[in-house]
């Protein structure tokens, strides 16, 4: 007992005993670890975000070339009867000469001297220009024969030139563009025919093939991801919370429950691609759901997200003190009412956290989509209804990003990062709701 008396004889509260000093030092250290942990995490986040933003921001600008094109009747409608079937027979290859003619005319008009051939001059335009023309003609067959002003996408090299990604030295060996073409671009810029504007098509447009990075957009895949997230939310949240409630609150404590419990935590460790294998086997081969459909993607991601939601929900449920349950049961609430009226609201922050993390995971996952056909060159047709949004082939944002990151043209690289920005924005806006909800439910007792 002497020791403890010594301790008290120390006296002043302002003077810390050596032991207290030591303990307070430990306390300070502990707190510092916490601050350091947060700081490291936030620092990493900042590094990642700056990388993403600095690399991806370029995708939100795009270069356009304005040209007057004469829609020659003899090329587009030889019979001259404006029969749509006949007009459609002219393929995009047939439109190329119009573009060539248009650009040579423009160059002539401007008085630019260049040694380029017409085809090379047209090379500064996107390969999608012909398709753009054809779509216009099919939509407005009446304008055949007129001269119409078009705003064409510039090719990715020209776009890169305006953005500083491509320089005259970097294209020395490039067979896709020549310094003469860049000279032409310079003079067109001077003439005000080339301009860089905000790239709304990147946000709303569809994917394009490897030859047209300038035309590729995330829009359709955003819809694909949205459909999948809706499926995941609509299924994983209720099922996950339901399963957790069952396991945590109602299940008899026997081996069956143990089996389910172990199963769920095991499913969390299953590599996501295995869920793809499962999805292919069950949903496509067995249940004959359509391939490449966001519905199937959503189902697969639901199965993948469930363990995350269940594990976090269960942890949150079990953290609610039993005395709360007693109180409710004591006034004659049924166990079901107890759970839904008292326990669940108190566990809501944990459930929402699980949902946020689960959704983040689902939203960023590519591997399982690979096997059910959502990765690749998937949608260039935007879905037109909710049903087709779920059932017609589509890709997803991470799959799109992943595909772009693999493509050869460096312009896709920029777009991949731009897509990541969109993905994160999508995620953040989705989480915002959950975060606000979570704050409302948070309380201590």
């Amino acid at each position, binding site marked *: 007992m002497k020791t403890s008396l010594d301790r008290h004889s120390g006296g002043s509260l302002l003077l810390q005993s050596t032991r207290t000093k030591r303990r307070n030092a*430990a306390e300070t250290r502990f707190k510092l670890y*916490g601050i350091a942990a947060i700081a490291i995490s936030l620092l990493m986040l900042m590094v990642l975000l700056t990388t993403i933003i600095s690399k991806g921001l370029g995708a939100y600008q795009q270069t356009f070339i304005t040209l007057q094109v004469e829609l020659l009747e003899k090329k587009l409608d030889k019979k001259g009867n404006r029969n749509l079937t006949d007009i459609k027979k002219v393929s995009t290859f047939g439109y190329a000469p119009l573009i060539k003619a248009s650009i040579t005319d423009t160059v002539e008009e401007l008085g630019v001297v260049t040694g380029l051939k017409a085809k090379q001059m047209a090379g500064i335009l996107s390969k999608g220009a012909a398709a753009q023309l054809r779509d216009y003609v099919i939509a407005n067959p009446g304008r055949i024969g007129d001269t119409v002003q078009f705003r064409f996408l510039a090719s990715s090299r020209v776009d890169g030139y305006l953005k500083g990604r491509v320089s005259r030295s970097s294209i020395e060996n490039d067979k896709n563009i020549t310094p003469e073409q860049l000279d032409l671009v310079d003079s067109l810029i001077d003439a005000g025919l080339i301009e860089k504007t905000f790239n709304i098509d990147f946000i709303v447009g569809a994917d394009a093939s490897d030859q047209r990075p300038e035309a590729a957009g995330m829009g359709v895949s955003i819809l694909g991801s949205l459909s999948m997230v809706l499926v995941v939310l609509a299924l994983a949240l209720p099922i996950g919370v339901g399963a957790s409630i*069952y*396991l945590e609150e109602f299940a008899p404590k026997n081996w069956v429950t143990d089996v389910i419990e172990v199963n769920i935590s095991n499913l969390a*460790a299953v590599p996501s691609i295995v869920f793809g294998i499962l999805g292919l086997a069950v949903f496509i081969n067995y249940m004959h759901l359509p391939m490449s459909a966001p519905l199937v993607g959503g189902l697969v991601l639901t199965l993948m997200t469930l363990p995350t939601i269940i594990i976090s929900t269960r942890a*949150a449920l*079990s*953290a609610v003190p039993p005395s709360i349950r007693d109180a409710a049961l004591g006034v004659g609430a049924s166990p079901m009412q107890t759970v839904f009226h008292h326990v669940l609201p108190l566990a809501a922050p944990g459930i929402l956290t699980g949902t946020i993390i689960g959704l983040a995971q689902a939203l960023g996952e*590519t591997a399982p989509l690979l096997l059910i056909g959502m990765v690749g060159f998937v949608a260039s047709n935007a879905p037109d209804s909710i049903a087709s949004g779920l059932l017609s082939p589509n890709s997803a944002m991470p799959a799109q990003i992943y595909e772009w990151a693999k493509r050869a043209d460096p312009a896709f690289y920029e777009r991949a990062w731009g897509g990541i920005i969109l*993905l994160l924005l999508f995620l953040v806006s989705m989480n915002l709701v959950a975060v606000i909800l979570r704050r409302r439910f948070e309380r201590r007792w």
Partner: protein
Amino acid sequence: MPTFWLVACLFLMSAAGFVLGRYRAVLSAGGEVRKLHSLPSYYGYNVALSTLLPALAALALWSILQPLVIDARVSGKISTDLNSDNTSAELMMSDVQRVSEGLNIAVARNEMTNEEIRVMDADAVDLRGRLADLGIALGSEVRPEILTAARQHRDMTHSGRLMMTIVVVLLAIVGFARSYGLTDKDFRARNVVERCVFALLALAASLAILTTVGIVFSMLFETISFFGLHSWKDFFLGTTWAPNFRGDSELSILPLLWGTIYISLIALLVAVPIGLYAAIYLSEYASSSTRSFAKPLLEILAGIPTIVYGLFALLTVGPMLVRIFGRGTEGLLGLTWMTGATSVLTAGLVMGIMLIPFVSSLSDDIINAVPQSMRDASLGLGATKSETVRQVVIPAALPGIVGAVLLAASRAIGETMIVVMGAGAIAKFSTNPLESMTTITTRIVSQLTGDTDFASPETLVAFALGLSLFVLTLGLNILALAIVRTYREQYD
């Protein structure tokens, strides 16, 4: 959209059932709600559910079965008509379906009449062209047999639909009548409704079992054929992983397993302390405003696509580590321990960062849920905050924290992109964290998405790896469950 309307109708009926059931219950108690066994709304729910659920189930079942039955019958007919085997009959069925669907659309748009269809002669009419105008593309011209079958298909579908509507509505009415009849002040409506909810909850939980069964079955057969082609001894006991196009590869899981464990371990060594300290700081020290912005920010880490982490590992972390541990005299430490940017450490560090929010956010919620009285008790004894956290709060929150860590570990085991880009693709046994290694998961992905012969062991091994990993993690989870059980602390 008749199904849509049918469903809408069912919901309407069920809503009406709710109101009526409720009303009748209140009536049976003479307006005295207290005399009822359950709250009036439970009677309402009871009637509503009895009206809705059986009918909806029947509708779902019918919608699944009807096309199967009709397809079977029509295709049976085609295959006898055309004298072809089963598979092509099945394909033919798609054409039949497409034609029949096209005819339906045509009728709906008033382009054709039912009469016209009945007398239509496939050879005489350019059906393909007409349907193409309606946006229904067909692969080839419509043959007469197909048209006949399509007509039959349409008719059967029509009558089937009619029957279904009758059955479904009838079921709804029966369900309604029965439950409405049962509604009485002594009827235990709450118990019935809750049993219903209970069944749904149990169903939700058993989905996990179904998923597991699905996973096992979707990999089992391929795994079996793998072991038919490759010796299990080499797979489980060998020490080399060297797939080869020429066949005759050495495919052993052990080096991959080692890599998996090593990389996950490093990732957890990064994520768990950082995540846990972050969680503790957020829930115990930080002001609520700091907490409310820092926590969601950390959660963004979980949402960044793994390909970004992969590139981060490859382009930033890897070279940085090389600068520290490699490069010899040019480097920071004058060491030459590291040759390439890819290593276990690179992947582990980066993966650890990704996993931080898994640990931090979940733990933060759980720590926050520990009752304040526990903290008060400890602080009242003169404990510092950190002592309180370490010795009282964390132990009380342990089951939840373990759950979070397990989740992070699971994610680490299942991660691919970071490993591919950060750790490399070489499978080997080594204890040096600065060397390249690889994991089971990445090998599954890579063998599955490669260019090898799909019937060869080199591809099939992916399934064997998947299944083995599944069994392995199952074992680990059983262990974890047992451990958590022993250390569980229950506060109140």
